[in-house]
C-alpha cells in the first residue's frame, strides 16, 4: 500500500532534473499506452498533475464505432464484443453515440469501464435482442456510465460476481406482453458461507446511482444471497431516477 504524502514544494533544482517531463504530451501518452491499465497506468496517474491528466486521457481509451471502415486502425472496434475481447484488464471503452449497438450475452471477465459517448445516456444504446439471456454478463468488477441498455425478453445486466457500478444509465426492458419475464438487473452472486465478522469481505454487489429503470417485472432479481439495500428514488419531471445497492444483507 502506498503511503499518502502531502504535497511538498520542493526546490527548483529537482524540477530541473525531470527530463521526462520535457517530452511532449503525445510521447508521454504513447509511453502510457504501453503500460497495463492495472496497476501501472493507475500508478502513473498518481505521480503528478500532468501525468494524472495524461494517463486518464480519453485518447488512451478503446473506442467502439459502428461505422469504422478501416479495421486496422488500432484502438477502434466495430462492435462492443470486439472491444471487450481486445481490452486489457482496467481499460476504458468509449462506446460511440448515435444508433444502436448489438449486445448479446457479452461476457465480461476482466475489470472494464464502459462509457457512453453521448451527452446523455439516451444517446448511446446497447440492444439485447430476443433470444439472448442478457446484454452484458459480468464476472468481474466493472463500471458502466452514461449508457442505455435495452432488453427484449431477456435482462439488461446479468451480474455473476465482482462489484458492478452503474452510474447515470438507463435500463429499459421493452414493454411486451411477456415483459413479466424480464428484469433490468439479475444478480446470481452468492457470498460464501463465512462467519458473520468476515461478511464485510464479500465485495460482490451492484451499486446503482442516478439510473432510470423502466419496464420489466422488477428492477432487480437476486437469486443468490444478495439483497436490495438503501433504495432512494427521485421523481423528476419525465422520469424516475434510482439509487440503490445490491449487497449482502447487513445483519
Amino acid at each position, binding site marked *: 500500500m*502506498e*503511503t*499518502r*504524502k*502531502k*504535497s*511538498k514544494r*520542493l526546490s527548483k533544482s*529537482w*524540477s530541473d*532534473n*525531470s*527530463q*521526462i*517531463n*520535457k*517530452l*511532449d504530451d*503525445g*510521447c508521454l501518452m*504513447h*509511453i502510457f499506452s*504501453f*503500460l*497495463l*491499465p*492495472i496497476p*501501472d497506468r*493507475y*500508478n*502513473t*496517474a*498518481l*505521480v*503528478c*498533475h500532468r*501525468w*494524472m491528466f495524461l494517463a*486518464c486521457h480519453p485518447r488512451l481509451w478503446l473506442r467502439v464505432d459502428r461505422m469504422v471502415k478501416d479495421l486496422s486502425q488500432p484502438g477502434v472496434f466495430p462492435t462492443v464484443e470486439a472491444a471487450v475481447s481486445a481490452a486489457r484488464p*482496467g481499460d476504458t471503452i468509449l462506446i460511440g453515440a448515435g444508433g444502436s449497438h448489438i449486445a448479446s450475452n457479452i461476457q465480461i471477465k476482466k*475489470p472494464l*469501464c464502459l462509457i457512453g459517448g453521448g451527452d446523455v445516456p439516451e444517446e448511446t444504446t446497447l440492444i439485447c435482442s430476443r433470444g439472448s439471456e442478457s446484454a452484458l454478463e459480468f464476472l468481474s*468488477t*466493472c*463500471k458502466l456510465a452514461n449508457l442505455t441498455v435495452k432488453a427484449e425478453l431477456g435482462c439488461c445486466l446479468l451480474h455473476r460476481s*465482482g*462489484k458492478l*457500478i452503474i452510474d447515470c444509465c438507463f435500463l429499459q426492458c421493452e414493454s411486451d406482453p411477456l415483459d413479466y419475464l424480464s428484469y433490468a438487473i439479475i444478480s446470481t452472486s452468492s457470498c460464501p458461507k463465512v462467519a458473520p465478522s468476515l461478511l464485510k469481505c464479500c*465485495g460482490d454487489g451492484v451499486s446503482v446511482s442516478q439510473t432510470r429503470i423502466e419496464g420489466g417485472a422488477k428492477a432487480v432479481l437476486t437469486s443468490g444471497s444478495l439483497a436490495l439495500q438503501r433504495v432512494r428514488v427521485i421523481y423528476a419531471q419525465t422520469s424516475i431516477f434510482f439509487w440503490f445497492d445490491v449487497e449482502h444483507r447487513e445483519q
Partner: protein
Amino acid sequence: MKKLKFIGNPLLQSREKINMSSDKKWLTLKTTEDNEEFVVEESVAIMSNVIKNMVEDGCASSVIPVPRVKGNAMGKIIEFCKKHTEESDEKVLKEFDAEFLNLGPDALYDLMVSANFLEIKVLLDSVTTKVADMIKGKSSEEIRNILKIENDLSAEEIEESRRENCWTRQE
C-alpha cells in the same frame, strides 16, 4: 566550415564519387539546429515516414532540412535505420536494439522525440518499450524517485483519484 558525415561507404571521399559510382540513390539530411549534414542511402532514410513522403512527393532533390533533431541524435538514428534495413534476423536485431538503447535517460528522451518527429515507428516503439519498462511494476512514489519528478498533487487529489479509479479494486 560545414561538417560532412558520410554514412555508407567510408572509403569514398567526396560527394561526386558517391553519386556517380553507385546506382543506389543517396540523400543528404541536414539538421538545421546545428548544421550537421549526413549522407545516407535513400533506402535507409525512408524508414522515416516523413522523409519517405518527401521523397514520394518529389521534394527531396537536394539537401533535406531536418529541424528539431540534433546532430548526435541524427547520427544514432541513421545507425539504427541502417542496421534495420541491412539485417533481417530478428534475434540479431533484438540484441542490437538492447545494446543500442543502453543510454542515459536524457539521450533516450532525445531519441524518442526525434523518432516521433521523423515518424520512425520501429525506433519509437523500441525506445518507448524501454522507457515503459522503467515504469512497469513500480508504485507512484518509486516512479517519482527514479524519474525525478516533483509531486505536485495534494493528499485530497490523490484520494480523489483513488476514488475515481476505485472500481478497479476489489474491496
